[in-house]
């Protein structure tokens, strides 16, 4: 008795409204790759790695939990400490220099100059090149036997010493020079877009007020560009944490382990040292670093939007 009734009820419902899961079906089909990527790869993969960082997996991932052993070992490994120090030094200097140089270049470009397109093309072309190419060129330029050091010495300053790639104390600065060469063009472009976004009337008003140009930049324009600075900062910073290719190409982490970085540590432990647990723990630390940078920013962005 109940069966026919339930069928007719279902049919009735279908006539009124086709199942809500079938509405917009094409759109849902088109979004399958996005949903899979977001849920399986990004969310699933991240959770998987974090989970396995608490195991003692070596050659193959195994679910035998050892608590925070891997993290304790990580933070007592000299190589990891060097990586972290390098990342901190490189990161802080890279942020300061790329923001400063990028902004200065953008401000110069904004002076209604001639050949603006030529200059922009020159400043930005390294950004089109890969880190591998960048690393190899600067490896050659900084080569102590033939590069800058040799050239300066041949000009008479025989005691001139600039050999960052073979001096473990300053090797990270050698990498910094190459990274700045590659990336400041991008910062310049972002800053220039920010400067061009400033209402021209603001500049006119400050001229009528008789405010010198440098003061207008510092007290009016830069504060107005705060969102551009923050966004640029987040982009540079999340790039810094990932730095890998450049180091591999320029120094292979050497001399010794002097220019090692977390991303290289992770790769080596996962694919060479057959110590997956260490690799997972180290990569989780990388994730944490990025989260510390991105979460407050995202919070501010979205919080700000809600208020606005």
């Amino acid at each position, binding site marked *: 008795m109940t069966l026919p009734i339930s069928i007719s009820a279902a049919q009735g419902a279908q006539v009124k409204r086709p199942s809500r899961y079938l509405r917009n079906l094409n759109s849902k089909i088109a979004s399958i790759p996005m949903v899979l990527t977001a849920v399986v790869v990004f969310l699933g993969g991240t959770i998987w790695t974090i989970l396995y960082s608490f195991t003692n997996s070596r050659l193959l991932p195994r679910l035998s939990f050892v608590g925070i052993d891997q993290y304790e070992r990580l933070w007592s490994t000299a190589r990891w400490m060097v990586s972290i120090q390098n990342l901190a030094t490189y990161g802080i200097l890279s942020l300061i220099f790329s923001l400063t140089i990028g902004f200065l270049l953008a401000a110069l470009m904004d002076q209604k100059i001639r050949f603006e397109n030529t200059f922009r093309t020159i400043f930005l072309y390294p950004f089109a090149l890969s880190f591998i190419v960048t690393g190899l060129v600067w490896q050659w330029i900084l080569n102590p036997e033939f590069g800058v050091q040799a050239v300066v010495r041949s000009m008479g300053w025989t005691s001139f010493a600039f050999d960052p790639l073979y001096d473990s104390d300053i090797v990270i600065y050698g990498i910094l020079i190459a990274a700045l060469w590659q990336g400041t063009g991008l910062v310049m472009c972002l800053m220039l877009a920010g400067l061009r976004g400033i*209402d021209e*009337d*603001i500049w006119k*008003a400050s001229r*009528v007020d*008789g*405010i*010198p140009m440098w003061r207008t930049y510092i007290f*009016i324009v830069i504060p107005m560009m705060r969102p551009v600075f923050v966004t640029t900062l987040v982009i540079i910073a999340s790039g810094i944490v990932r730095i890998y290719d450049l180091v591999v190409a320029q120094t292979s982490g050497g001399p010794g382990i002097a220019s090692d970085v977390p991303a290289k540590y992770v790769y080596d432990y996962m694919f060479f040292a057959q110590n997956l647990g260490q690799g997972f723990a180290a990569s989780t630390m990388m994730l944490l670093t990025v989260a510390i940078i991105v979460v407050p920013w995202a919070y501010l962005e979205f919080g700000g939007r809600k208020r606005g």
Partner: protein
Amino acid sequence: MMHNTVPLRSQYSVSIRELSLSFGAVKVLENLNIDIHDGEFLVLLGSSGCGKSTLLNCIAGLLEPTEGQIFIKDKNVTWEEPKDRGIGMVFQSYALYPQMTVEKNLSFGLRVAGVPKDEIDRRLTRAAGILQIEPLMKRKPAELSGGQRQRVAIGRALVRDVDVFLFDEPLSNLDAKLRSELRVEIKRLHQSLKNTMIYVTHDQIEALTLADRIAIMKSGVIQQLDDPVTIYNRPKNRFVAGFIGSPSMNFMQGVLAEEGGRFLFQTNGVSFSLEGYQASETLMPGRAVILGARPEHIKVDGDIVGGEVHEAIVDIEEPMGADNLLWLKHAGHTMSVRIGGARRYAPGSKVRLAFDMTMASLFDATTEERI
């Protein structure tokens, strides 16, 4: 820097002499000459791209002219920096410094110029009083309404203690209601301060209500520089006649004819007597002309006081509350006529109409200049 110490004509507050500006081959301003009296409210009126804002920027010193001179208070300021010209400027986008409070916004220029602190305070208090923005002094621009922001922007010009105020479409970003309110306030401000004000706008109502004189511009050339009444009633050319007035003036193409000592305007086989029209030159029969008449200068039925009466057919009626706008068909022309709001006509009905030729305009058909 060379100064012209001999006063030219000292009653002028701002004088523009032979001013031209071109960007490459494009001429933006061409041989402009304007003398602005002390305390005068001059409006530069035109559609976008006519050069009115460019001219204002030249006066402010934000753009350099290619040719010509600018005098402010009898001082040749052609090469002076904006801050040394004795001007204050108000912008369409307000251009308030967003990170500073209203107080800082007003005082920033003075502090940079090294004005003593008590003097700054005195000026701030005065400006805040005049503009009634005392309660807003500690707020930032983002926390102000559009009208309040514009008031602060005016305040920034006010504290500079200058002779000449420049306004660059200051009300264009506001909604219609606020616009008419602030328009009155600007007029009141001018009446109490008695400064020279140069005001750029594309809004003819703003121009007609505020101006002592209006300069109507087109393609970098001043078409007419006169008081609002003259501009409205005796436009110098067809462009000015069509630009000012809403709905626009009615135009009819035709030729002049003479009949027994009276001049006639003939179009599509119909003649209108030009009796009462005050021509500025001798009329010649046979000359191709354009007759222009504003909607309120064409009289219908009961409004007719005399003169030649024609018959027309009502095409469309547009009641607008206080007024009623009739679109009439006559002699192959469509013309708009403004009548009282209470008088209604059905489409298709016949009306009698008569032109008030004392208020009409005649233009040469080729030069489009007033005859």
